[in-house]
């Protein structure tokens, strides 16, 4: 769980996890579990009226999967920051792969830190989320 600075090098892949396909059921559960009741993610009629072909995943659901992949590799309490850009809409059925590579080793606030470059991609390798996390090591 805890990363050691001496064992880490730029380019190392530390985060790597693939998730099951996102179903309508997942979106319904996440709507309740997250408090994000925006109907665009669960109500097909609403989504169509808004100009979309179908409902689609909450960006924050995808970020939550990325966060899970991250905390499989590092302790939650070691995360100093976590940010993502929602690069593209994540469609139903998408099977996400979340990856994180060491981009930089540095010191700040009196501790050693690692900057991870993060992505969440679909099964075709298209980037849905891109971001980074800073971890204390």
């Amino acid at each position, binding site marked *: 769980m805890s990363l050691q600075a001496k064992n880490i090098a730029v380019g190392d892949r530390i985060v790597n996890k693939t998730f099951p396909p996102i179903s309508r059921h997942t979106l319904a559960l996440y709507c309740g579990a*997250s408090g*994000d009741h925006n109907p665009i993610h669960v109500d097909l009629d609403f989504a169509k009226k808004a100009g979309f072909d179908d409902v689609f995943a909450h960006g924050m659901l995808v970020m939550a999967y990325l966060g*899970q992949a991250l905390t499989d590799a590092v302790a939650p309490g070691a995360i100093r920051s*976590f*940010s993502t850009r929602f690069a593209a809409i994540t469609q139903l059925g998408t099977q996400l792969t979340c990856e994180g590579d060491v981009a930089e080793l540095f010191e700040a606030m009196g501790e050693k830190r690692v900057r991870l470059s993060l992505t969440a991609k679909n099964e075709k390798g298209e980037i849905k989320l891109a971001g980074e996390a800073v971890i204390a090591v």
Partner: protein
Amino acid sequence: MVDRSAIGRSFSPVHASVEPGRLRYFFNTLGERNPIYRDAEAAKAAGYAAIPIPPTYLFCLEMMDAEKPFEFLEALQIDLARVLHGEQRFSYHAPVVVGDTLTFRSQVSDVVDKKAGALTIVNVATEVTNQHGHKVAEAVRSIIIRN
């Protein structure tokens, strides 16, 4: 349309509790199996006072316990159907665990037009403090409005 006059507008503070049942439901939804999140003893052994929240859960707590989860959209007269989430950032200063009560204070930190006004980006910055008055995190959400 939202313009730069909205910068600095603040919204009702949200008080939220980290409840174990709701957090478990979140973990079940995501298929989370990490013992730190599932077992209070494992969390304590790892140095947490109780089960910690996962990295994005602050966003959820604020929405779940807000009287009006989309208050800022309503206040700025933004149609929910025209909104996409553009970016999300969190900075963490201290762990948040089951049993904590948090206060979220949000304000508009930036408004920018893109693509000749076809899109407007609104940033909302949120400061999160715990029951001891300690600042535990900051978050910035960036919302894209399809004008």
